[in-house]
């Protein structure tokens, strides 16, 4: 089994290195095929590992030592257990699909080979992240996915906005990484190790305050990667990257790393329910907050990104409330349908020549039947309609909230579920229904390559049927995660809740269809709605990016300039120079003593004599005084 582990882990790396060999050369089809093939290998290995793990075993290997000094010992250790194998499956499935899809999507791009190099490197980092058996290894993957995310968001580096977004994402993640690093330090100095098993067995013996701080700092790390408020702005901007990247990194895998961390560190969070409540509350807030921004946005990818953000909020609610397996389940289901949604959006983008405003589309279902079906189904899954995947996972989270008596969180999530349904179908309605507004812009849309649609189909399938794995999954992961069943008291309440939620969601869908499926004009910013305060607030993302720009970015640059020009050059350096100048000037001024005039010299000699003799006198007198 160790062999499969290594294959699953290193196949993407090999793919990445292979692709990077051709990084500078023009497009070569074989690069995409080889990279995809290797990922498929990785997927197969993961599947084999899954079947092995389902048999109740785990695989734990130690590749080699990484760092060893003092008491610190960090190996490259990998573990395939019930949790990581689920993540491995999710990562390899989605990334295989995305790789194959990208062969078509990046068909005409100059950076085809480079793209695959980055993408496979990302998968490798993600695998390291999920498979590592210690926090340092997790951090390697953590930073690795950050790097690849940077490279892929800024993939089209000629675009100013893309590189800006890439840097923003990297730097914001770094802020969170600092938190994570501090968390790791705390763990090390309190438990003496970074291995999961050691840490988790020791953690119960620590004072509660230490555990609390560990939990908080680790969660700060998770907040960055999973784009939780207030570090959320990078995710929407990250949509500058190619769409497959958005599907893989910014929907299915990397952004869920934060959730994975919390799930993985569940023994820690179990001890500190207060932090858990905070996580859940923040998650609920982000769910609603992100959904509200998605309501009015006019950028197809951003809408989906906000929806991702919102769903991450759901996951954190579950994780915060201790329902780790539920969080992981939603993570999995979400990965499938959200990736599908993004890939569909990618098809639309291609068809529309990179036009992102859904108001400029409309009626595309006639030309893009496959994509239409897929995106609709994905949206249905996202909205959480029975029997799609979203229903099982999302409904469960609502139940968790309800059962744990956090009714405010429950209400917020319920409301968000409605909003989710609304904006998802607003998008679908605007893109695929109504008048063919794109004709105004002289675009001739066409369906994507067949094989791209075929590549997407596994995701479609999973988005539909993932819910049926629930019990198998449950049995699998609860051997590692806390086994808590969430049953609403009373069958009656349960049915009322479930059906009520379904009806609410369906109502939202119907409303969205009604409002947008017959849309016939492109809004130009003059309508009453668009000028209302609420609309502006939402479409400007609550002015938070602007706030960051004005309060952090610009003052930081300004402060840096001042630090350099005013402080470093004019104070620190000038002080040094003035000391040198003072010595130089003294030399210039005292040069007159050496004017060669004997008379002056004699005079100076006498002055010197006086000074010396008086010093001698003073010291003698002083010495005698002391001596006496």
């Amino acid at each position: 089994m160790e062999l499969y582990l290594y294959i699953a882990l290193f196949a993407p790396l090999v793919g990445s290195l292979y692709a990077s060999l051709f990084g500078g050369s023009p497009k070569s089809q074989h690069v995409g095929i080889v990279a995809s093939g290797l990922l498929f290998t990785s997927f197969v290995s993961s599947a084999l590992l899954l079947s092995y793990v389902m048999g109740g075993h785990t695989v734990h290997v130690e590749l080699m030592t990484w760092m060893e000094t003092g008491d610190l010992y960090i190996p490259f250790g990998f573990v395939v257990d019930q949790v990581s194998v689920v993540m491995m499956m999710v990562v390899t499935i989605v990334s295989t699909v995305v790789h194959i899809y990208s062969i078509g999507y990046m068909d005409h791009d100059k950076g085809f080979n480079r793209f695959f190099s980055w993408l496979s490197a990302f998968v490798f980092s993600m695998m390291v992240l999920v498979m590592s058996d210690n926090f340092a290894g997790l951090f390697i993957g953590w930073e690795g996915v950050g790097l690849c995310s940077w490279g892929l968001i800024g993939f089209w580096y000629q675009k100013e906005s893309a590189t800006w977004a890439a840097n923003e994402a990297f730097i914001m993640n770094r802020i969170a990484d600092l938190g994570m690093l501090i968390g790791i330090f705390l763990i090390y100095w309190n438990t003496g190790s970074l291995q999961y098993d050691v840490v988790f067995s020791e953690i119960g013996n620590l004072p509660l305050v230490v555990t609390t701080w560990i939990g908080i700092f680790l969660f700060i790390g998770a907040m960055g990667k999973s784009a939780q408020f207030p570090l959320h702005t990078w995710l929407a901007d990250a949509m500058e990257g190619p769409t497959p990247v958005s599907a893989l990194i910014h929907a299915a895998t990397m952004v869920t790393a934060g959730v994975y961390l919390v799930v993985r560190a569940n023994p820690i969070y179990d001890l500190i329910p207060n932090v858990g409540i905070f996580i859940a509350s923040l998650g609920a807030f982000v769910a609603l907050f992100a959904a509200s921004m998605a309501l009015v946005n006019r950028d197809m990818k951003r809408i989906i990104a906000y929806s991702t953000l919102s769903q991450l909020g759901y996951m954190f609610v579950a994780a915060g409330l201790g329902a780790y397996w539920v969080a992981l389940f939603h993570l999995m289901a979400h990965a499938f349908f959200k990736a599908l949604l993004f890939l569909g959006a990618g098809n639309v983008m291609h068809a529309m020549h990179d036009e992102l405003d859904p108001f400029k589309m409309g009626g595309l279902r006639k030309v893009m039947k496959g994509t239409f079906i897929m995106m609709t189904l994905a949206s249905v899954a996202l909205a959480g309609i029975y029997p799609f995947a979203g229903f099982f996972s999302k409904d469960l989270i609502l139940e968790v909230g309800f059962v744990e008596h956090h009714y405010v969180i429950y209400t917020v999530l319920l409301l968000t579920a409605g909003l989710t349904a609304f904006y998802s179908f607003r998008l679908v309605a605007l893109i695929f229904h109504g008048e063919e507004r794109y004709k105004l812009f002289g675009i001739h849309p066409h369906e994507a390559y067949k094989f791209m649609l075929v590549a997407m189909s596994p995701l479609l399938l999973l988005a539909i049927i993932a819910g049926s794995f629930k019990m198998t999954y449950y049995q699998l992961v609860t051997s590692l995660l806390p086994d808590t069943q969430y049953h609403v008291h009373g069958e009656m309440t349960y049915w009322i809740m479930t059906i009520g939620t379904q009806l609410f969601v369906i109502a939202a869908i119907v409303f969205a269809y009604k409002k947008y499926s017959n849309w016939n004009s492109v809004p130009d910013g003059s309508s009453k709605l668009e000028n209302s305060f609420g609309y502006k607030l939402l479409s400007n993302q609550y002015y938070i990016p602007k706030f960051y720009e004005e309060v952090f970015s610009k003052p930081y640059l300004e402060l840096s300039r001042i630090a350099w020009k005013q402080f470093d050059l004019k104070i620190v350096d000038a002080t040094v120079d003035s000391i040198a100048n003072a010595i130089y000037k003294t030399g210039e001024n005292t040069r007159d003593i050496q004017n060669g005039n004997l008379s002056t010299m004699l005079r100076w000699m006498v002055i010197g004599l006086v000074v010396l003799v008086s010093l001698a006198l003073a010291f003698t007198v002083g010495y005698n005084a002391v001596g006496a």
Partner: protein
Amino acid sequence: MFEAIAFYLFAALTIVMFTITVMTSQALYAITAMAAGMIFISAFFFILGADFLGAIQIIVYTGAVMALYAFGMMFFDTTRDVVEKRTNPQIVFVLGILAAVMVVAIFVAPIVSNNIQALYPIQEGVGNSQAVGMVLFTKYLVPFELAAVMLLVAMIGGIILAGKKMDKSLTLMAEEEITTMDDSFEPQAGGH
């Protein structure tokens, strides 16, 4: 009483003479006043019982040094005054007096605190010259011989410096000058 009168008299005379030496603009006055001052100083030596020193003072200073100066002055145009630009004479006076007081203070310090011991006490019943001779040729023999050598060197030095052909100084000449000098002067030097 006699000692006191003598002291004050010669003190006044010495001070006056030396002041003239320092202040006058006439070189001739200066040298004359100084010669007189030197003789008056020898009087102090006699008063203090240093007969030998007194004699030396008169012989060396008034006899040799002053004669040397007098001869030296013949070389110069003594009638022409050196223009003496004086800047801040006050500073000069203040500094001079201050320094002098300090030096004396240093001298006095050990005596005042009475922690000085006589190394070579004056023996009773022995004349000053004899005593001096005894110390000079026992304890101070080496310095004495060195002083003799020094005087010899000084004599030779004086002769050579004042001699002919010394109007050129190698240190003050540029390199080309030296080389040209070698060519033009060597035959003449050989002729002497």
